């Protein structure tokens, strides 16, 4: 199994100021091609910052990040843009992550246009295919995000990410804001896409219960560090760190 992503001693430090995600204080992790690594931690643990640093949306202060063998921590200009074709992101709140003034067709097409992946006519066709792949219809291209439900919006965000044909997706609390029933459908969609396209996922969540069904392995974060990494089944049956034990204990025990 080859590592698609290999991170060593990642540090993210925002300095003074307050409107930032939490800092990261020396995180190392590897993700193998085709697997799903869940990164779980409470608010302030730094899990979101790890995802953003990998995508180079925030600048890491120290550490190395290798993606498919190349160092991505210092990429710039064209090389950075080419990397962004390979690694994409889906955020928690599709209401915030979709430009409310753009039509769905233009939102999904934006990546295709930036990377000049298709002519105009072919681009249309590709957008249609993508929308159908995520469970929407070709007729939706002319509508605005606010005309859709939360689950449908998240499907639009997934289609936008897939438009540049990435190998790696950061799912930053991508299903946390969805209703339980919709969440299950979107998780099924993500699993289907992973199988069909050979995708690798970094699945960020604040709640262990949410990752049990999708994760291959789970890494638990606390105060900017990873305190435990284990196969999903192992972590749920025998959590080693107090943080993992607390997260597991917090799942309500329904009296069946």
């Amino acid at each position, binding site marked *: 199994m080859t590592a698609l992503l290999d991170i060593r001693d990642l540090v993210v430090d925002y300095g003074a100021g*307050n*409107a*930032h*995600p*939490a800092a990261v204080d020396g995180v190392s992790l590897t993700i193998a091609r085709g697997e799903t690594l869940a990164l779980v931690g409470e*608010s*302030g643990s730094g899990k979101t910052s790890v995802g953003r640093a990998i995508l180079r949306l925030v600048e890491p202060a120290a550490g190395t990040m290798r993606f498919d063998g190349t160092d991505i921590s210092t990429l710039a200009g064209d090389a950075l843009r080419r990397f962004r074709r390979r690694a994409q992101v889906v955020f928690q709140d599709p209401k915030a992550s979709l430009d409310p003034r753009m039509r769905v067709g233009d939102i999904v097409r934006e990546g295709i246009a930036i990377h000049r992946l298709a002519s105009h006519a072919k681009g249309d066709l590709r957008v249609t295919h993508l929308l159908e792949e995520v469970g929407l219809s070709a007729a939706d291209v002319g509508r605005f995000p606010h005309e859709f439900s939360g689950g449908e919006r998240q499907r639009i965000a997934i289609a936008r990410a897939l438009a540049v044909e990435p190998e790696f997706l950061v799912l930053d609390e991508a299903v946390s804001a969805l209703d339980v029933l919709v969440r299950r459908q979107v998780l099924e969609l993500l699993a289907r896409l992973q199988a069909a396209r050979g995708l690798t996922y970094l699945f960020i969540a604040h709640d262990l219960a949410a990752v049990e069904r999708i994760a291959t392995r789970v890494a638990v974060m606390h105060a900017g560090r990873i305190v435990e990494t284990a196969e999903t089944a192992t972590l749920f049956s025998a959590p080693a760190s107090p943080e993992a034990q607390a997260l597991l204990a917090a799942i309500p025990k329904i009296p069946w």
Partner: protein
Amino acid sequence: MTRRIVVRLLQAAAVLAVVATAVFVLLQFAPGDPFAAALDGTNVPPSVRMEWRARYGFDLPPAERFVRWIGALAHGELGYAASRHRPVADVVADAVPRTLLLVGVALALGFAAGILVGLVQARHHRRWPDRLLGALTLGGVAMPEFLLGLLAMTWLGARWRLFPVAGIASLGDTATWPAWERALDLLWHLALPAVVLAVGVAARVARHQRAALLGVLGEDYIRTARAKGLGEWRVLWHHALPNAIGPVLALLGLALPSLIGGAVLIERIFGWPGMGLTLFDALLARDYPLVLAAVLLATVVAVVARALTDVVAESVAPRRARIP
């Protein structure tokens, strides 16, 4: 907080330097000087002209005059106002307190009335008191102050003689009047210009106060307050107003420059002998030292007041947690 105050002070100093320089440079382009009218007649011998201009430094190169002016300024000397035959400092010392009185009273009246109107409008949102006051405040903002001043002076002053039409004191030997009578006389003269200015302020404040209150009334903590069983006025007064007053106080600083602009016109209409009237007279007489002093002082007042309100508004700004 301390850093903010220091930055504000530095900015205030920068404004003053910029204004002083700009006004001085601009006036160099202006044709004529204070002596043009009096001395450039054919009867005055050139030597006399030279002598008078030399006495007040008008024969020096502009750069040197600027340096001298700034130097004098640092010593509190503002030069000689030829059109008034008095030192500028004396003219200004008379005029500035009058303008401050006018603007201060207008601000106090305007903010008190505006906040009250905003509260009533928010309390009766979308019902008739809100609509009526909304129409009135809109008119109050849309109608230029000088027009309102003109109407008030003509009807309440000239036509119905309820108030004096001009000046700051009644004619006659008011100096011998008892103090309280002089004070009443001053108030009587102050009433119209101050109320006219206050109407514009109140209308603007009310519109902001209403909008700020309505914004705050949609907040969760207002719902909490209602769920506690508080009455509507108590909710408005104790929970909405403290959170909605910040933007309105910030308006104080932002509105002040335009209020001083408005006061200039109002002083002219009502013959109120403050800085505005002084400025107009000085402009007509091309009395440069006086013009410079007038513009500079008006700016000082605006800048200082803005810095103060900024600090106040900052200290009452809603407290929010860090975003995780």
